[in-house]
């Protein structure tokens, strides 16, 4: 059953320099219990996609077009009140990047869990506190610590407490926006594992945002690759890891050692992310793409299906058998780097 279906989502920010097209026609779908990874470079629009779903955009941001269907209902049409009562935290909960700042510093963590439970249900305070304690146990935190203030927690512990808060109302969808980047590697791994286990146990769907391909490859069923506010490739994890078709995905893959197929040196994609102010026609990746042709510069590639429910946006998608081996060579990208430098 499809839990979340996003069609042609467009979110823009009004700035003094013009309108930033941060999300520019995104399509995504997610089944119940499924986990989806969203991956892309910094500034590609990952966070904006997440915030558009729960409509938590800053004052200067607005959803200008598209639908976000949750359980079949377009929630972009919901009133603020409806969204608050029916969707936020009941259905969709969020785990932020830096948990320490996600808690209000002047209340205990337990009180904050109680607050959200009592705001949405008729649960009496003491029962809600029991629930907070049991959530703490689930996450491996001593239950007495519900009475502690956020600043008394270590980073990893705060992140677990944040997850406890997110699970307070048994949401059907968890959105975790780089939930572990603020933590050190050891703790990151442990928390990621725990999140994965919980997701299985609790039958929750999940959107996992990161710029670390190795993280999503372990945690997610499907992966969406975002570039310049668009989903350039969307496929099951195995396909994205083993047989991706988009040159950008191929390039990203080279930057992470654990999933590399060939034993070559790490190479990152040369060049910088595209400007998002009033984008022109043409493929946004063209300036950095080693496989760009004439038409890549003038025609915007459209989303094409392939395989079992996968999509791709690239004029040369059909040539993937030939492109893939090329793209896994580091020289291909080094040469492109020289081309870019020569242009400057």
């Amino acid at each position, binding site marked *: 059953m499809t839990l979340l279906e996003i069609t042609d989502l467009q979110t823009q920010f009004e700035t003094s320099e013009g309108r930033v097209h941060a999300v520019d026609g995104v399509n995504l779908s997610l089944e119940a219990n499924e986990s989806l990874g969203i991956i892309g470079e910094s500034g590609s629009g990952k966070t904006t996609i997440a915030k558009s779903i*729960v409509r*938590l955009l800053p*004052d200067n941001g607005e959803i200008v077009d598209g639908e976000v269907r949750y359980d079949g209902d377009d929630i972009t049409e919901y009133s*603020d009140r409806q*969204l*608050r*009562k029916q*969707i*936020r*935290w*009941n259905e969709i*909960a*969020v785990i*932020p990047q*830096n948990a320490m*700042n*996600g*808690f*209000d*510093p*002047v209340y205990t963590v337990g009180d904050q869990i109680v*607050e*959200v439970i009592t*705001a*949405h249900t008729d649960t009496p305070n003491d029962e809600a506190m029991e629930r907070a304690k049991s959530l703490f146990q689930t996450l491996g935190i001593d239950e007495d610590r519900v009475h502690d*203030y956020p*600043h008394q927690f270590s980073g990893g512990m705060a992140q677990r407490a944040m997850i406890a808060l997110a699970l307070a109302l048994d949401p059907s969808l968890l959105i975790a926006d780089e939930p572990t980047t603020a933590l050190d590697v050891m703790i990151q791994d442990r928390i990621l594992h725990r999140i994965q286990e919980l997701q299985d146990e609790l039958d929750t769907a999940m959107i996992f945002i990161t710029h670390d391909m190795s993280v999503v490859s372990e945690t997610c069923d499907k992966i969406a690759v975002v570039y310049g506010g668009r989903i350039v490739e969307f496929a099951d994890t195995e396909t994205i890891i083993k047989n991706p078709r988009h040159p950008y995905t191929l390039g990203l893959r080279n930057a992470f050692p654990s999933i590399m197929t060939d034993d070559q040196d790490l190479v990152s994609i040369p060049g910088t992310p595209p400007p998002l102010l009033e984008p022109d026609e043409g493929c946004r990746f063209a300036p950095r793409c080693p496989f760009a042709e004439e038409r890549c510069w003038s025609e915007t590639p459209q989303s094409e299906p392939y395989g079992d429910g996968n999509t791709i946006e690239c004029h040369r998608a059909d040539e993937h058998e030939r492109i893939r081996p090329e793209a896994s060579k580091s020289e291909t990208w080094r040469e492109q780097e020289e081309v870019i430098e020569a242009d400057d």
Partner: protein
Amino acid sequence: MSFQSYVIRRIGQVIVTYWAFLTILFVLFRVVPGDPVSMHVQDLGAEAREERIAELGLDQPLYVQYVEYLRQLARADLGQSMIYNESVWNIIVVKFWNTIILMAASLILAYAIGILGGALLAWYRGTAFEKGGIVLTLLARSSPEFWTGIVLLGVFVFWLGLFPVGGMRSIGSELATGVGRYLSWDFVYHAVLPALTGAIYFLGTPALLMRNSMLDVLNADFIEIKKAEGLHPWNVLYKHAVRNSILPLVTIAAIAVGMAIGGSVVIETVFNWPGMGRAMVDAVNNNDYQLAMAAFFLMGSVVILMNFVADLLYVYLDPRVTYE
């Protein structure tokens, strides 16, 4: 450091501050040439002067006077008024409460309006409401208390005739004692304008500070999470944003108490309020140094006490404070 040892340390500091304050008071009124005491005795004839000097103990060496001065204060003995020939304590105690009540009303009003208004200014950032609010706030703060008072008098008394011109109770109204003095409509009727005058002057600082502090807090991640939690917007605003923004205002509140107490000299003069401030101005004008000194002493004591309370309150309100 534990909370207890923090409190003990603060008490130690307060005692030092208080002692220094008392010493300054002594120096101002007794030691400096041209001090109020010398002015008081110079008006008397030669013989009377000798007598008065001996009576006040002014012929003693300074350190003896100083020790005697501290001993008297320790016994809560504020001396005799030089003009009224009555114990200063008797004269001032009622005036003291008159002032405290008036200023408390002003401050509570100022902080209620300031916190609420400042929070709204931040919440509605970038709108015409915010702009207008800021201009009004700065206008209120730019107007000295005596001027605000005169304007209010002009409008509400001389023009509209809604309120009495001054004083604390109507002539012929029943003379109550103790707390009863403040529990009548007649008192409220007299207190509205002076309290409002103070409130208008004091509200600028909390309003602007609240706005700035709110703007900081509203950018914090946890506010976004609270919105994502689906809490009611008013809950996010008051339980979280306001509650966090209020912290810096606590320290300022103590300073505001100081300003209010000092400002009583002006407000009470404009509205003929029978309080400590006006008593002090009159006493200085009459060279009644015992009375002036007592008023000054009480004002300073309240301010020091409030600073101390504000410190403790801050520690109580902000769980992150480490007692340093």
